[in-house]
């Protein structure tokens, strides 16, 4: 073939910047969106992606990927694999479909923003591939989830989740509107392609795919692993941007990455953590959430940022301690407020599962065991009623997740601590020092009402659980309940029960 090689001509495609003269450069690339900050405008001329891609390569490769992903789907849709999946695993997938599908669409918006406001033509072109990739991820996730609606109405939340004011999507919209849609492109490239895509998505897409295969959900594994193969291309925007920012304004680079890291760590502890350590059947767990975090985040990601002269984030110790608590607490919170979620959370605390939890998390029993025991005894006394919520927890004003992180006191006991902050005549509540600190620095941007603020302000009527569920657009056919109470309580039948009739809400 007498076709030219990409290397021979691609510079013409990458080199599309010019000097604006009819309008001001700052009007075309306003600081709010382009965010050059202390970096001299010319410095962006050096922006360069590591591995290049052309339009023709893109459509050829992607066509193949689509063909194989849909071929696997078509083959499997004729089998009854799905019907034999464990309820807990199905819950992990429902959470994924509902939690992730429209985050992919929001990533499309992030890429489109960079395709418009990126400070170098090559960057804007890469973002054009990026927005296509994210359209793909949104379409695949939505389409695969859609196919399951007929099997179970909870999969309806694949599309519905983010149209609601359920507390989970409020929390996730806060995070992703912050890092994806409303950040300037420089911050966005560090927060999304770098911190989020080269770091955290591995957790959900690589690690969860391993659990999916173990659980026999080949279709799901096929979908998410194919999605992950696109990340390497558009996530390059992260390092290419970091190289320039780290040179001219390392303090900003550090702060921006730290913030995205923290927000992602909070969100993943709510979603991936319970899926891995509780919903995935014991015999199918590859590693614990903590182990996955250590491998994919603590080791790999930290190595990446250290290569650019950045340090571990300032909240490192609090984050590392949180690996033993955040997701366990949030799991309990999700389980307890189960009528507010679109999956069937599995408590996952049978004796065998508890042995595993104790082995992976030496403090688990001391921190969580007694609380689950109270729940178990109530369930075994046919008092499930007492394990259902009647009130709301404090929600963190930054991550919008329940304030439920315990820390150990000097006397050895574990207590949930709320970190308050008074500002402008109002008391704000936070789940952690990290959240409080970030909120304080970004308060002009992030200050908005939590679900509890809305409730207390009378925006949610009637002011009871029914009113709340209605505000969250939760319908009875979808409302979550435990997948199988007996599975994890039967080990304890007949033991002396000590904590019956627990006051509702005490698990916070």
């Amino acid at each position, binding site marked *: *073939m007498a*076709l*030219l090689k990409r290397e021979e*001509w691609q510079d*013409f*495609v990458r080199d*599309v910047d*010019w000097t*604006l*003269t*009819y*309008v001001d450069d700052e*009007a*075309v690339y306003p600081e*709010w969106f382009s965010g050059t900050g202390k970096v001299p405008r010319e410095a962006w001329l050096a922006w360069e992606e590591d591995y290049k891609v*052309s*339009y*023709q390569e893109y*459509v*050829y490769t*992607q066509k193949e990927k*689509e063909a194989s992903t849909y071929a696997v789907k078509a083959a499997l849709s004729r089998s009854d694999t799905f019907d034999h999946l464990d309820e807990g695993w199905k819950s992990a997938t429902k959470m994924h479909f509902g939690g992730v599908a*429209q985050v992919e*669409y929001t990533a499309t918006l992030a890429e*489109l923003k960079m*395709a*418009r406001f990126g400070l170098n033509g090559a960057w804007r*072109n890469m*973002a*054009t591939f990026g*927005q*296509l990739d994210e*359209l793909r991820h*949104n*379409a695949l996730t*939505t*389409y695969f989830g*859609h196919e399951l*609606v007929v099997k179970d*109405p909870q999969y*309806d939340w*694949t*599309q*519905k989740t983010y*149209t609601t004011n359920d507390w989970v999507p409020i929390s996730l*919209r806060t995070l992703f*509107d912050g890092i994806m*849609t*409303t950040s300037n492109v420089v911050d966005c490239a560090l927060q999304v392609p770098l911190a989020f895509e080269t770091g955290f998505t591995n957790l959900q897409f690589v690690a969860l795919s391993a659990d999916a295969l173990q659980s026999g959900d080949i279709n799901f594994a096929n979908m998410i692993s194919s999605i992950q193969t696109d990340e390497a291309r558009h996530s390059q925007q992260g390092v290419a941007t970091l190289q320039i920012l780290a040179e001219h304004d390392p303090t900003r680079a550090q702060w921006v990455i730290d913030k995205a890291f923290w927000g992602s760590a909070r969100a993943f502890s709510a979603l991936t953590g319970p899926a891995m350590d509780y919903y995935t059947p014991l015999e199918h767990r590859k590693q614990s959430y903590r182990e996955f975090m250590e491998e994919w985040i603590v080791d790999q990601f930290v190595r990446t940022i250290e290569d650019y002269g950045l340090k571990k984030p300032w909240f490192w110790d609090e984050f590392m301690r949180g690996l033993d608590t955040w997701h366990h607490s949030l799991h309990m919170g999700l389980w307890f407020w189960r009528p507010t979620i679109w999956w069937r959370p599995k408590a996952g605390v049978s004796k065998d599962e508890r042995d595993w939890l104790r082995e992976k998390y030496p403090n688990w029993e001391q921190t969580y065991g007694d609380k689950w025991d109270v729940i178990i005894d109530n369930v075994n006394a046919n008092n499930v*009623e007492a394990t*259902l*919520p009647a009130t709301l927890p404090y929600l963190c004003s930054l991550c919008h997740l329940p304030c439920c992180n315990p820390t150990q006191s000097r006397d050895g006991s574990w207590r949930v601590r709320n970190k308050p902050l008074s500002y402008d005549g109002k008391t704000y509540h936070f789940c952690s020092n990290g959240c409080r600190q970030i909120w304080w620095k970004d308060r*002009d*941007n*992030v*200050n*908005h009402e939590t679900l509890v603020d809305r409730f207390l302000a009378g925006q949610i009527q009637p002011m009871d659980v*029914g009113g709340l569920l209605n505000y969250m657009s939760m319908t009875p*056919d979808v409302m979550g*309940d435990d997948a199988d109470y007996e599975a994890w309580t039967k080990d304890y039948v007949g033991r002396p029960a000590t904590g019956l009739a627990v006051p509702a809400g005490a698990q916070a």
Partner: protein
Amino acid sequence: MSTPARKPRKQRTFSAFGDVRKMPSEYEIVTHAQNWNTRDGRMSTFEQNPSSPINLWFLTYRENSPLQVDDWDGWHDPDKVAYRSYVNMQAEEQTKLDGLLDSYNEAGADAEFPAEQVARLGALFTPSRYLVHGFQQVQAYIGYLGHSSYITSAAGYANADLLRRVTIVGYRTRELQMAHPDSGIGTEERKRWESDAAWQPAREAVERMLVAYDFGEAFTALNLVLAPTLDDVLLRQLGQVSKAAGDELEWHLGNVLGKDAKRRDRWCGGLARFCVQQRAENEKPLHKWIDRWSPLADAAAEGLAPLLGKPAGEVVAEARAAREKLHAGIFSTADAAAAAG
């Protein structure tokens, strides 16, 4: 509260589609109501301080744009382009295109071009990558700001089509440079774009469009005015002139890229018509923007005429006719509907 009861119900598709008898298409399933910042009943566009800078930006340029429709989800892309169909379509197109490029290259066609055609390509065709990249940026902005995911996705694919066009121009730039190393092709484009008198009206229009931040205005300026006008000059007219000058390849490329342009005309014309049909008051701002941007587009076409080697009057008249044909489909149906109603 009591343990949630589960009542069985056969649901076959997303509840967002309501009680539908017919299964929505794959396009609708993956495109319908995917952008949460356009959901009903939101307190602010983004889940953050309602007066954060970007909330205010969207409030000003999208929520308060003069172009308004009650139900933006009512508009769908007539070509129903979704990711899978997009990459399939463009991969197939690319195979054909590669075949074209390959065979003309084998035949050594570029070396045979008359000097006048080489000069025309170097003056008009190869510098156009800057113009098209500017279009690409504006299309990305329209997608970013889209009132519905149907609009954002369509703009996303259109944004990619423009990168496709820059890619083809870039590829040809190199081929022509190799065949005519002394022509200035491959080295002079930026200078021509920035300083040739012929390009300045076009460059002015693109730069001004990059600061037209209102959603409706950006959409109108690019997709209803500048792109349809200048595509006629740079794809259709240039193709014809090239063919007459013995360069069939550029004529083919104009046709290949013209398909993307026509697809864009279909969805953009359709969207504008939808706006007018849904709310007659939309006609006023659309006309205002069309009237504001048309002179810039005409000036750009007129400026490029000498490079094309055709009388300016002819170039502008043909380009304007292409644009007006698109507009006729937008407003005439609405007039007819209004007359009928």
